């Protein structure tokens, strides 16, 4: 199983390993650093990720669209199965490697300012470096056991970071929820890995899903349809990590973590791991399974967009928009738009990260106002914001670019990636049963809803007047865009949200270089009308929607759905999904636990105690028998003997008169006896 590598490949492997291990090193150094808010920690982590990013760029340039590099060595042997640990670099993994380090870098720089004043900033950077290590390792490793390991470590570091402010009870409830829901996906993944292993006897990703994929050459079939359990497991894993229905509810709650964490983990990288998993194991899916993925993705995208329309928490809106966009990616995988899905993953990472960083700055400023005037408000609530465009123009422009990219407006990267998915969904539905048409149509509707909630968000935050000042005129906001640690990341990410990074022709997504990096390309030829009509149509409709939303929120025209109607309530309460889960899952499981406890105490121990009582009762009976029957018999005999003795003794009085008297009586008795008989 040894690969003969050329010298240059060995170098590539080393650089890739360096990119992965530097954050781990930073993590270890930070653990050992003294103090709670040691400034050095931030710079060590940032430097590690900066160097990692440089290495990633090099690795990317050596591997992208060239040959795949794979190297491994024996890790351990269990039974007759040898487990290898290794690095597998192909287009997919180097793309992710680059993407993760490029997103992590601005977030780290931003964090040095954003979290620098926190009293536990050292702990923050320690966790952050650990997260980066797990995520980077996840994308380059080459076997499924290691994949599972880093998959779960990513979830673990997310747990740590969501609960970073562990004295806030909301945060620790949220991180528990996130970990447990991710665990559901994890056991799905573990089951899928185990089933794949029983069929193919290997954990090696390259052998299983690579060029000569085992899953293609040998039919993946098990009696009783257990291969569908494997699919179900993968689907669960994807749903948990990438926040797809029905396991999406942890993501909005995860917004309790620091905003910079949300930007990195809960928008750009970790949540993309599910889509990455789909990309890794893609050949295993049958058409039916792909259709199911498409339906899950489209439904999630639609549902999350409807919820995002009415939320007031700035980060929650963004969280639901993340879920919605991830839905697009999963749907794209399902309809066979493999490369478009990964393309959207890449573009989304940049603009969503940017939006969260902007949100962080805004929330920070409102928080200052809150602290200064001792207000009892939620600094994340958009209803208290407004008019910030004039105060922080730099942030506003960044938000605008990111928002337009999220809408998929022309000249942005979002336009290129999302329209690709929309077009291919129409092509995919062509010639299928009419119900399949619902998927592209719902995707279009979702896209338009996106335009609405993005406009609502930007208008509420940046336009109009500052709401707190309206309520209480004495409040004045001293806000600004912040220092270079804020500005530099915003500039970098804003540039990455525009079209030139991905394609030199802003109108035609088919030309994007990223799409041509993957073999499974469909729909890149402009063969039909969809390629023109969909982008043009969506953009024009989006413009109308944007104007409409602007009209509603700036010029304060009436809403189409009155607040308080059932549609509004459904959206506002997030489709009541959390409440339903609490009722039908959490409650019954806890009740079952209580029942098990009751069963243990009353039935099992009850049985033991019954045995004990029976034992004691038996011994009491034997004791009684012993005492009264056996001993009683003995005592009876003794008593008889005693009384006879006593009786006989009474004759032995020692007085001669008595002896004579008794003798006389006996003789008389004998005489009488004789006479009578």
């Amino acid at each position, binding site marked *: 199983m040894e690969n003969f590598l050329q010298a240059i490949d060995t170098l590539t492997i080393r650089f890739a390993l360096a990119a992965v291990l530097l954050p781990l090193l930073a993590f270890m150094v930070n653990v050992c650093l003294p103090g709670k808010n040691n400034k050095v920690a931030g710079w060590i982590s940032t430097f590690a990720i900066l160097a990692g990013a440089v290495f990633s760029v090099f690795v990317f340039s050596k591997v992208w669209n060239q040959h795949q590099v794979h190297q491994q060595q024996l890790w351990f042997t269990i039974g007759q199965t040898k487990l290898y640990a290794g690095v597998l670099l192909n287009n997919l993994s180097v793309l992710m490697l680059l993407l993760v380090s490029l997103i992590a870098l601005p977030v780290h720089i931003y964090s040095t300012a954003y979290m620098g004043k926190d009293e536990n900033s050292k702990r923050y950077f320690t966790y952050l470096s650990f997260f980066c290590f797990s995520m980077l390792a996840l994308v380059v490793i080459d076997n499924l056991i290691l994949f599972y390991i880093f998959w779960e470590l990513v979830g673990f570091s997310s747990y740590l970071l969501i609960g970073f402010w562990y004295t806030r009870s909301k945060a*620790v409830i949220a991180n528990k929820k996130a970990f447990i829901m991710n665990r559901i996906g994890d056991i799905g993944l573990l089951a899928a890995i185990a089933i794949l292993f029983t069929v193919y006897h290997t954990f090696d990703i390259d052998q299983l899903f690579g060029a000569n994929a085992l899953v293609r050459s040998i039919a993946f079939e098990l009696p009783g349809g257990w291969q569908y359990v494997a699919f179900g497991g993968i689907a669960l894993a994807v749903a948990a990590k990438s926040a797809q229905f029905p396991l999406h509810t942890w993501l909005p709650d995860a917004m309790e973590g620091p905003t910079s964490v949300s930007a990195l983990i809960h928008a750009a990288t970790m949540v993309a791991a599910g889509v990455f998993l789909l990309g890794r194991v893609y050949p295993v899916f049958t058409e039916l399974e792909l259709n199911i993925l498409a339906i899950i993705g489209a439904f999630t995208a639609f549902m999350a967009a409807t919820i995002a329309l009415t939320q007031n928490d700035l980060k929650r809106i963004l969280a639901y928009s993340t879920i919605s966009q991830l839905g697009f990616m999963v749907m794209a995988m399902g309809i066979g738009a493999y490369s478009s899905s990964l393309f959207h993953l890449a573009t989304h990472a940049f603009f969503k990260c940017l939006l969260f960083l902007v949100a962080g700055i805004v929330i920070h400023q409102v928080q200052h106002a809150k602290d200064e005037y001792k207000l009892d408000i939620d600094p994340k609530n958009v209803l208290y914001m407004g008019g910030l465009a004039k105060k922080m123009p730099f942030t506003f422009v960044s938000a605008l670019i990111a928002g337009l990219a999220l809408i998929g407006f022309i000249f942005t990267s979002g336009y290129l990636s999302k329209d690709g998915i929309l077009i291919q969904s129409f092509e995919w539905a062509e010639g299928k049963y009419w119900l399949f048409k619902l998927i592209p149509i719902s995707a279009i509707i979702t896209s338009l809803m996106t335009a609405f909630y993005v406009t609502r968000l930007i208008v509420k935050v940046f336009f109009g007047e500052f709401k707190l000042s309206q309520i209480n005129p004495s409040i004045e906001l001293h806000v600004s865009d912040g220092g270079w640690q804020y500005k530099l990341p915003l500039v970098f990410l804003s540039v990455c949200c525009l079209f030139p990074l991905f394609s030199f022709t802003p109108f035609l997504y088919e030309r994007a270089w990223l799409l041509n990096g993957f073999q499974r390309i469909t729909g890149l030829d402009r063969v039909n009308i969809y390629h023109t009509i969909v982008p043009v149509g969506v953009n024009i409709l989006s413009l109308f929607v944007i104007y409409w939303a602007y009209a509603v929120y700036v010029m304060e025209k009436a809403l189409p759905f009155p607040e308080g109607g059932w549609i509004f309530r459904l959206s506002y309460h997030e489709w009541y999904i959390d409440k339903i889960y609490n009722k039908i899952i959490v409650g019954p499981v806890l009740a079952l636990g209580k029942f098990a*406890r009751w069963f243990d105490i009353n039935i099992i121990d009850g049985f033991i105690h019954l045995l004990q009582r029976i034992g004691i009762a038996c011994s009491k009976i034997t004791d009684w028998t012993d005492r009264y029957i056996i001993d009683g018999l003995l005592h009876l005999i003794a008593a008889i003997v005693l009384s006879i003795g006593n009786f006989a003794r009474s004759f032995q009085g020692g007085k001669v008169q008595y002896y004579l008297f008794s003798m006389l009586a006996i003789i008389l008795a004998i005489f009488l006896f004789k006479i009578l008989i």
Partner: protein
Amino acid sequence: MNILSSLIFTPLLFGLLIILLPSAWRFSFKYIALLATLIQLGLSITMYLYFRTGSAYAGVSNEASFQFVQKAHWINLNLGNTLGKMQIDYFVGVDGISITMILMSSVVMVIAALASWEIKSNLKGFFSLFLLLNTAVIGVFCALDFFLFYIFYELMLLPLYFLIGMWGGARREYAAIKFFLYTLFGSVFMLLVMIGLYLSVKDPETGNHTFNIVQMMNPANYDAESIFAVWGHKTLLGMPARTVGFAVLFIAFAIKVPVVPLHTWLPDAHVEAPTPVSIILAGILLKIGGYGIIRICLGIFPEVAVSGAYWLGLLGVISILYGALNALAQRDLKRLIAYSSVSHMGFVLLGIASLTPEGISGAVMQMVSHGFLSTMLFFLVGVVYNRVHDRDIYHFRGLGSLMPRYTTFVMIAFFASLGLPGFSAFVGEAFSLIGAFKSPSVNGALPYWMAVCGSVGILLGAAYFLWTLQRMFFGSLTLKGGEVWKSALTDLNFREIFSLFPLALLALVLGVMPSLVFDKVNDSVLALVHFLGFK
């Protein structure tokens, strides 16, 4: 002297020393006990390092391939012509499965000795019993003669009964007697089967009946007319005799593991036992159950084990889920951890029942890992209990800000126990489950649904541990005992960190380099699976 015998009897010698020393020296006893366990640890590390691997050293059913063997005639009685000569040997030796158990036990014993610092009364009695117990448990893992095994096995009961009954909590007598009766119930019937086996098996060399466990594994050594003869098809109480024999031995070991529904001694014993005894109970004693099932039940009755694997797996799955659900409902932190032990040991049974190399190796790994982690968990509970004499989860909140170092270790122990990758429990649980998933298509011992249900245990494990973290350690600080507790709850001291750190490190090292266990275990497990009739 043979290294294995020194390993077994070193603690006994030190125990005698403690008995002979005057009570005025009682403050030296803990150091003597610690020294004994350290010497023992040194010996077992030496053995581990010199342990040879390869199929020629696999052990299991081949007497010649055991290592560090010492065999001496012990009891030889001529019982006349009908019964022949009674042959009981002092026969000790190790293979891959026992060497890992021995090393793990030695580590746990050192930690238990360190945890004994909290014992304040009757030190002479405590430490001499402690060292006697130490001899007995190591003896169980080494003995290859059933009679010797049984003696060590019973010898564990006596010190444990007194250790719980005299140094325990409020309901210590109830717990001690419950523990004693439960275990005695198992071992009394084990005695009968042992005698039955003795009368069925003959040493091919001397022609005498023998208690040699390895010879009991060879069907050719059984008398054709004897009760447990492999091809004899004798019946006992209307059932095949060998099935009855297997079931009886299994029940005896299942009580130790413990397997639901024979587990209720465990929470009571743990709750009442002092910390060092809890550590030995969870860390080592439970493993004797698992070890016994592998060595004795599977070894002596392989064909019954194969046909009954379904039921073993079922009991394993029930233990996993039932233990986890119970843990979810506990208010007492120590009870919660006791039930989590039930759940985690269920994976051992499930892995063994899969009869695959992956599953059995996973089970051994899980035993080693649980040895370290349960030690850590009970030690940690002891820390908070010693300071305020309360363990109710709802009486604490936000300990994270008051005792940061303690909370760090609790988090490590909790996450390692719930199977976070990178720690040993993950390797154990994952491969037990992978074995269970592999079983239906390889040997048909278990159905798929058992593997799936087993994995739900991992989910529930996350639920009860994280919920506890949330309730006790996170949030804002509120204590039932107010300011008094606040000043009493000091962070970990040096001795405590010194005990906990190696355990955390071991769990981590085994998680990253599972080969430390698997390399030693592999040959034996493969030999065992081969012996059971599978590839």
